[in-house]
């Protein structure tokens, strides 16, 4: 395959970026998208040029490190797939592929296609945790959890925190991410002690980081490689309202 690549190049966070065009010949349809970029980089290095910087780690769709806006779609044209699991057979010979970093005020571009997504980590630090008793190992299944709730919490827990929801949203809203984390913990008995303040604090931190608001377009759900449902956003709204209207404040004041 021969491809025309249009890639965002930016030296550092403070410098201005611009698109650069590359012609890449000899791409195999069996390559993953990231292998295609490796292939391009090999060529750039051999020509003595600066390779394209991009985030990646596990390359098996589970770590959440890879990103990329590919032809206007977060993680590329395929549904429920991360960029690392996207293969070049999804493209055709002669295609032009536009590759951009996630665009959000909360995700500053560090270099080329790499963005700083630690805003999501700070949202997690604000409330995405549960308190546990230390000591001996508890017996398995001592806390009863219904199968339905366990499944629902597991669906939410599938979120890998890649930030595709933010990237795809026209408002750069992180509501799908935050709602997945709040849902996952508030659905289970282990998450009850911090339930109210978790919703208040995570939304508070989300706003502080400069993410936009949710206009219920569901673009996030379509872009999410783990197909997290927007029904979790409704749950987050409910949790937040409940905590605001009855009791969350007391919980905030008491710690």
């Amino acid at each position: 395959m021969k491809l025309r690549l249009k890639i965002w190049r930016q030296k550092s966070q403070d410098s201005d970026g611009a698109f650069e065009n590359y012609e890449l010949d000899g791409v195999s349809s069996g390559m993953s998208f990231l292998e295609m970029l490796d292939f391009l980089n090999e060529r750039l290095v051999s020509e003595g040029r600066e390779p394209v910087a991009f985030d990646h780690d596990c390359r098996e769709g589970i770590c959440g490190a890879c990103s990329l806006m590919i032809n206007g779609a977060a993680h590329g044209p395929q549904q429920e797939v991360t960029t690392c699991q996207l293969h070049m057979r999804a493209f055709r010979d002669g295609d032009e592929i536009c590759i951009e970093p996630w665009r959000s005020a909360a995700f500053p571009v560090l270099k080329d296609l790499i963005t700083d997504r630690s805003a999501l980590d700070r949202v997690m630090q604000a409330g995405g945790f549960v308190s546990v008793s230390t000591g001996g190992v508890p017996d398995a299944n001592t806390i009863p959890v219904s199968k339905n709730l366990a499944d629902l919490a597991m669906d939410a827990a599938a979120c890998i925190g890649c930030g595709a929801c933010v990237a795809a949203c026209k408002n750069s809203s992180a509501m799908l991410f935050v709602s997945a984390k709040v849902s996952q913990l508030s659905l289970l008995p282990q998450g009850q002690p911090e339930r109210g303040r978790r919703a208040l604090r995570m939304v508070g931190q989300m706003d502080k980081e400069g993410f936009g608001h949710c206009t219920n377009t569901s673009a996030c759900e379509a872009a999410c490689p783990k197909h997290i449902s927007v029904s979790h956003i409704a749950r987050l709204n409910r949790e937040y309202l409940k905590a605001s209207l009855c009791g969350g404040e007391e919980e905030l004041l008491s710690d």
Partner: protein
Amino acid sequence: MNWVGRLLTSSVGCKVLMAVTGAIMLFFLLGHVAGNLLVFAGADVINAYARGLRDYLPLLWLLRAGLLISFVLHVIAAIRLTRLSRRARPVAYQKQDLSGVSLNSRTMVLSGLVLLAFIIYHLAHLTFRLTHPAFASLDDYDVYSMLQISFQQPLLAFTYIISVALLMMHLSHGITSLFQTLGLNHTQYNGLIRCLGPALGLLLGLGFSSVPLAIMLRLLP
């Protein structure tokens, strides 16, 4: 009162404010369209309805005050949230695929702004009667003649019909969206909620546009 401030300044709370005020205006619209349709029952009925409304003047003003407050809060919240979101993406994408996102949801700000302009004109037209000098010679409660004079002008009738079409788009997304924002969802009812916005939007759109359309086409005596 600390919690009120925090709720209203948060993005989620601001959306809740939009949902609640939107719901209040929706209830008003349902009453409004029902009243409008009385035009088809004849001049006497709609004029008697207009007179009847004025008989409950204190109540009418109470409702109007509630409506005005809702309207103002809805617009303020919309401006604030839109500004926040603009700031959240300072650099636009070169290419962004929005094919999966409904047109109605993407154009809420645009349809909202046009509706704002329309509502101002609509109030000046039929509530304060500033736009048509011919209204001065009419009886105070002669709504029927006012409508006849107005909508026999095709330009004005079309303006109303197009505005109502935008209202329909705004409501199609807005009604379904407000349930989501208020956290009112359940697998048992999600299908119904998804249909409710477009269905109610269409119903209101047909109801509102039927009056200028019927008068423009001289279907009313």
